[in-house]
């Protein structure tokens, strides 16, 4: 089981959290300007990264706030947790 450090509550068991998928997918500001392909890209297409991945988690059984976790999807090692404001946009490929 993962141990995730909520930026507000500290380290807790994974079972307190809810997974929210890839981070930083911005809703297009003008959906009507998009083609069907662009809209589908926003709705469905995912990086599905093998390696360091920026993803959203919510502390569902705690403070209920959303935050960003950087986690290696092969080793499952958590490389960092951030509030939405301070979250990096690019994944770090050298966590050391």
């Amino acid at each position: 089981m993962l141990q995730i450090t909520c930026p507000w509550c500290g380290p807790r068991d994974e079972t307190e959290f809810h997974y929210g998928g890839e981070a930083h997918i911005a809703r297009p500001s003008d959906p009507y300007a998009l083609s069907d392909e662009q809209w589908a890209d926003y709705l469905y297409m995912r990086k599905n990264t093998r390696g360091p991945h920026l993803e959203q988690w919510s502390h569902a059984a705690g403070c209920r706030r959303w935050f960003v976790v950087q986690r290696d999807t092969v080793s499952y090692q958590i490389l960092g947790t951030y509030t939405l404001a301070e979250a990096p946009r690019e994944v770090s490929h050298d966590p050391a």
Partner: protein
Amino acid sequence: MKKYSVFSLIRNGLSYHQNWAEAWRSPEPKAEYDAVVVGGGGHGLATAYYLAAEHGMGNIAVLEKGWIGGGNTGRNTTIVRSNYLWDEAAHLYEWSLKLWEGLSQELNYNVMFSQRGVLNLGHNLQDMRDISRRVNANRLNGIDGELIDANGVKKLVPMIELNGATRYPIHGASYQPRAGTARHDAVAWGYARGADARGVDIIQQCEVTGIRREDGKVVGVETSRGFIRTPKVGVVVAGNASVLADMAGIRLPLESHPLQALVSEPMKPILDTVVMSNAVHGYISQSDKGELVIGAGIDSYTGYGQRGSFSVIEGTIQAIVEMFPIFSRVRMLRQWGGIVDTAPDACPIISRTPVQGLYFNCGWGTGGFKATPGSGWVFAHTMARDEPHELNAPFSLERFHTGHLIDEHGAAGVAH
């Protein structure tokens, strides 16, 4: 290929079974093939088999980075059924089930397909309405299915708990008698042997590291054993589909999750059918070796690590023990995870791509094993003719922007 028969068994018995021929060769990769299948799991090997057997393409290779059948083919709970709700999915899975029914004869290899039936339990009124709708849809599509009540479940599975203080009591089930289980390794090995006999090169320990393209067309694959030239590449790599797509600059609507399973110590025969429950998240059958084979839901997070969190197993075991208190003291022997590529509509993608000569067969998510023969059959058709068969035409990559999604979350079962 030496045919397996009672006579070959006796003949080889006379030499103490020391002289059986190898079931397939391990050739060096050639510089060029007419087509290359990436991924030596059941689906990839079936694709190669049908490319050779149905479309006369013998000069092809299957590239496998590990050993054949070592990914999800060897990591699933071997359930085979076709009771899907929507016409598109029902036809695809039913065609697969029909191929299963003749597969041991077709391949001259015992895949141990056992039509022991599958029960999908309902635990409340809405479950029963959904199940009833699905059974009716199945019957309209010519797929066997029965709606049975709690007593009917008890008749088929006498040790199931109906009267205890269960939080989710069993109200009934759908029952598909033609469904069942098969031997996972045998499917991979049988297709490998059949493909090899028709000239297909099965190359293990050969990882694809790049997909070379010129003018929007595939010209070959870079591998850990050198460049291989080919005009057609079919990618059938389950959990790693997005990684291969990335090599060709394509985005896929997939997320790869760990899906765990576990088996118990072997026991005397006690469960002669398959019991699945979407509501309490667990499914169980008994293998021919006597082990209880138990499956879970996917872990919520994405992952490529072929393992998941223990809390998911804990939840699964709680569900199984609530349904079968008699199993509460059974000891578990092994536990593992596979990486399943889940699609937004719980249906596969068997499709051409924007790159000419590049085909993807992915997105099977939690339920690919049952479709192994049908998946290979339609994908071989798609690769050989450069157009989908009518069975897999609805499962194109384009459906995500045309909006023709096929929502099978209900019938896809427990896991999502």
